[in-house]
């Protein structure tokens, strides 16, 4: 009961309400009716027509939010989600196209390949910090761009679908796809991501390694003093992070339209949304899930609101940012390490 009361008084509730209120002022300012607009957001994202899209969006947003939350729990910021995502997608596409195995096995292999590619690339950023002293924040960000360029090149030249006007690979063979629920766009990918979230929750709360990760985030010198090896942990956390980002990429490729299309994975900006969700929740597992869901609702609902009312969808973007600003101003999470790192 205490928890419920606490949640009601928490900065989260306050920030969401403040954001909604300011958003309403914007709406009134442009001559729109806030109730209609917010109603459209809710019915467009949670109504029968929208819930599918929302869950599909949740798959990507939550997947990336988890990917970024896991290192964040130890105070590490991975800004290279885009690169890891794209390489994961590309690896899955190549595996899906060229594996001569039965379709279900190919799907499994493609998922694993996507995770491996993301993990490997993220680990590279960790090595840059461990061995060259380049702060992870910077190394991961800078490494992200060449990865996107590489994938773009592959999709444009060696792996391009012959005759197509788009920089895309061929479509995966029949059956090389994640099973979808009914006729919706929601695939088994959602379950995979939910499983990842559950695993993260369990690890964070109930395992020794989760405890070590939390303590590293709260005071890395304390953790090191007690024997938690910093470099190794960074490497493992980044690899896990990259694997999850790669998994999201693989899920993207193994879902409609079943191919790698240059820019398709990164254009919706899930990496930023995911990072913001993770940051807002202080990387706490449950909070990350809730924040991801909230953002997915805003994004899908915003588009739907634009379709049905005159209100441009930028409004939900503004709303989202305002909520974050309010939350951030009242919320802190352990980031002592970053400060020092950043002050190179």
């Amino acid at each position, binding site marked *: 009961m205490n928890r419920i009361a606490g949640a009601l008084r928490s900065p989260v509730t306050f920030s969401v309400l403040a954001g909604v209120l300011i958003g309403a002022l914007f709406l009134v300012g442009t001559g729109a009716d806030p109730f209609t607009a917010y109603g459209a957001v809710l019915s467009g994202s949670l109504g029968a027509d929208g819930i599918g899209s929302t869950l599909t969006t949740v798959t990507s947003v939550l997947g990336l939010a988890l990917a970024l939350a896991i290192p964040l729990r130890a105070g590490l910021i991975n800004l290279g989600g885009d690169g890891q995502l794209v390489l994961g997608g590309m690896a899955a596409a190549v595996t899906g196209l060229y594996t001569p195995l039965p379709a279900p096995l190919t799907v499994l292999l493609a998922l694993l390949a996507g995770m491996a590619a993301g993990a490997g690339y993220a680990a590279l950023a960790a090595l840059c910090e461990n061995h060259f002293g*380049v702060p992870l924040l910077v190394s991961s960000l*800078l490494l992200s761009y060449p990865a996107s360029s590489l994938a773009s090149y592959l999709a444009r030249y060696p792996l391009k679908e012959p005759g197509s006007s788009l920089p895309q690979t061929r479509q995966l063979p029949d059956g090389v796809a994640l099973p979808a629920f009914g006729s919706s766009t929601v695939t088994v990918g959602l379950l995979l991501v939910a499983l990842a979230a559950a695993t993260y929750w369990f690890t964070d709360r109930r395992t020794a390694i989760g405890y070590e990760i939390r303590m590293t985030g709260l005071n890395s010198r304390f953790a090191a003093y007690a024997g938690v090896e910093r470099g190794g942990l960074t490497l493992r956390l980044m690899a896990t992070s990259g694997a999850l980002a790669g998994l999201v990429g693989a899920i993207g490729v193994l879902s409609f339209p079943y191919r790698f299309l240059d820019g398709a994975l990164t254009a919706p900006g899930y990496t930023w949304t995911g990072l913001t969700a993770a940051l807002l929740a202080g990387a706490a597992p449950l909070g990350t899930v809730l924040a991801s869901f909230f953002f997915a609702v805003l994004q899908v609902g915003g588009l739907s609101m634009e379709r049905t009312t005159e209100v441009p969808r930028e409004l939900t973007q503004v709303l989202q940012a305002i909520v974050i600003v309010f939350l951030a101003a009242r919320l802190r999470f352990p980031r002592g390490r970053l400060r020092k790192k950043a002050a190179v």
Partner: protein
Amino acid sequence: MFFDSDLLMSALRALTPILLAALGGALCERAGVFNIGLEGMMLMGCFTAVTTSWFTGSPWLGVLAAALAAAAYSLILAVGAVTLRGDAVVLGIAMNLLAVGLTSFLLRTVFGVQGTFDDPSLAGLPLVGGFSPLAYLAWAAVAVATLVLSRHVWGLRLRGVGEAPQAAATLGVSPAKYQYAAVLVSGVLCGLAGAQLALGNVTLFSENMTAGRGWIAVVAVMLGRALPLGVLLAALLFGLAEAAGFRLQGLGLPQQATDAAPYVVTLGALFLTTARRRRRTTPAGAVS
């Protein structure tokens, strides 16, 4: 000829907005506020510069308004991170998001267009010797920032505040005051950077036209170790790599390779400089 004066000019043009923003970022860094919202502050500058220039007909008023608007926008970071002790990284990211949404929204409301606002009668900045006056201002700002940071009492106090805020406080120097000042000045500089981009480099506003330049400025702050001269060198390196990339396209290198080039070069430079610094600091660390 590959390395000719045009290449340098091109690099210098690409450099100006990044340099202005990075100088602001460096000041914040020195004051102990991690400013990752340069991109958003710049974008606010772009929009205000174009809007003001359009309605007043004076690009100079546009520059002024951009500086003021971005400074006002930077208050989000100042209040959030300094007064309310919120997380600067989250705030910065939120500011970047908010700026994209807000400028797109305002573009629709003010000009009734989407995507791009461009008009032949929109007055841009004049060129003096091939560069906009703001480019010269940026160069001067490097010199001024260097002098102030290293020799002026403000600089000494700013550095002190960034390094040990309580120590400064016990000597009657309010950390919050200096941090506010640094954030606001970074706002002004980002506003100028935005004005340079929207009224100098080109004469128009388009959604998200900063296109990652603010992030490059953040990297330049780190690569340049938050020293004005270091930041200048880092931004120059990036500008040259980008301009060279454009040339290499002409020599048949794929666009994707030239896109990646500046980032790879920057990462390489980081490897070199941090490796060198490590070698230098290891023996020194042993003394204490």
